[in-house]
């Protein structure tokens, strides 16, 4: 009975948090229009969330692209299809690796920082202080960060894919001697704007919403102690990574699966 009770309690806790998370998301969405008059707030957050994540995105994109180039070449070479390397690299990046890896890196780099920042603001009474100054922290602190994350993610994913293509080009064409014309023309011919690029962008927008939502909610909901904040940042990274990977399967199934 005791184990059953614990299970029930755990489940109730999970659903209660889930409910609170959705109410929170709704409140944030309602606060978004108030940002129209204050674009500077959002721009500053885009800098700290997006621009400061550029380095890790650039470097990771380059290496992922280079690995794709190498693996693709080795395997395509077995049946003489090296020319398809361009298509392979581009499709892998645009459809899957770009949005997914960017979202995972984003959760680790920007998401954890967001949670820690908001959690600390809560612990040091800054949020409470704002409320007493008649400033709604949801509008002033949470909404700009949320919007900044949602805007940054697709841009970062795009940059990731672009750098990755050049990484694959560098290894495939530059080092392994694939024909340059074939590399680009295969890519041009087989990558479809609607089916591949737009779907990739949709994915990254969804991931952006989910990852940033989890990050700001965990921060806002954190127990205002050192331990609580450390748990909140951990939960941000774990939950948003799992959510991104799970959603990726769902989205892929809907977009490319013909289910």
């Amino acid at each position: 009975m005791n184990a059953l009770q614990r299970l029930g309690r755990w489940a109730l806790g999970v659903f209660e948090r889930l409910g609170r998370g959705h109410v929170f998301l709704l409140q944030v969405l309602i606060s978004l229009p108030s940002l129209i008059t204050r674009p500077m707030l959002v721009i500053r957050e885009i800098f700290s969330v997006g621009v400061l994540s550029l380095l890790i995105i650039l470097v990771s994109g380059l290496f992922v692209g280079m690995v794709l180039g190498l693996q693709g070449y080795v395997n395509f070479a077995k049946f003489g299809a090296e020319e398809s390397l361009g298509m392979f690299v581009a499709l892998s990046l645009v459809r899957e690796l770009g949005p997914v890896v960017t979202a995972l890196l984003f959760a680790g780099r920007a998401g954890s920082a967001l949670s820690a920042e908001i959690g600390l603001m809560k612990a040091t009474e800054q949020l409470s202080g704002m409320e007493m100054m008649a400033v709604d922290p949801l509008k002033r602190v949470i909404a700009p960060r949320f919007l900044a994350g949602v805007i940054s993610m697709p841009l970062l994913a795009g940059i990731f894919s672009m750098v990755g293509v050049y990484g694959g080009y560098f290894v495939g064409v530059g080092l392994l001697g694939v024909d340059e014309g074939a590399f680009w023309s295969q890519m041009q011919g087989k990558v479809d704007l609607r089916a591949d690029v737009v779907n990739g962008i949709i994915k990254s927008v969804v991931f952006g919403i989910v990852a940033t939502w989890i990050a700001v909610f965990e921060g806002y909901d954190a127990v205002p102690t050192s331990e609580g904040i450390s748990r909140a940042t951990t939960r941000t990274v774990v939950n948003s990574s799992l959510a991104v990977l799970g959603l990726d399967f769902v989205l892929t199934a809907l977009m490319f699966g013909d289910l």
Partner: protein
Amino acid sequence: MRDLHFSRGSRKIFDGLSLDIPRGKVVGLMGPSGTGKTTLLKLIGGQLRPDSGTVTIDGLNVHELSRRELYALRKRMGMLFQSGALLTDLDVFENVAFPLREHTRLQEPLLRQLVMMKLEAVGLRGARELMPSELSGGMARRVALARAIVLDPMIIMYDEPFTGLDPITKGTIVSLIKQLNETLGLSSIVVSHDVHETIMISDFVYVISDGKVVDSGPADELANSESAWVQQFIQGLPDGPAPFHYPATDYQDDMFGASGP
């Protein structure tokens, strides 16, 4: 404030608390740690809701206001948090300017003048470019004070303004609170367990314990209180009506008795 009941979990914090804050006076609320003095301020500010009872400010029942009305009321209230609650990503000037920037559309030169006046009042005009992390505890509290008065509120609430300060800084804060109250004509609520300082600045003092007002009176009369509890609190005796020990089972039993491991 009338017949306030508030409990957190199963613990009763306020059990029928009533008190009045007269306009233009400094009112001290004293009581030991853990009596919910900060909670009381949060109830006044409408951040928490009481289980029953009312808080009335300037004829308005705080907990019946709509969100918009509550925010309008809060613009007329200043609060000084124990930690200062300065925004760590803004410098001193911007921290003080924050309420102005959020609530008004003042031109930059006028805003600058207002902020400078408030900073001058707390003696920190020279520190305007420092970041909150570069301030000492006392300075941070003075900046927070400047921020609390920047919108010229009618009430200002001080949450433990003297805790953790050296004697000189304490003296500065005491005289600042007194000065501000006299020059700006606002009502002040000082929540504290520092007996000496609170009595020094307050016109009227309430002593709170176990969710009730134990004693109240003009500050200078409190020392003659007949309540044994108030005497213990004022003189700082370790044991008396307020026990030294947290409620526990018998010591002997706990150490050697059947309930032990």
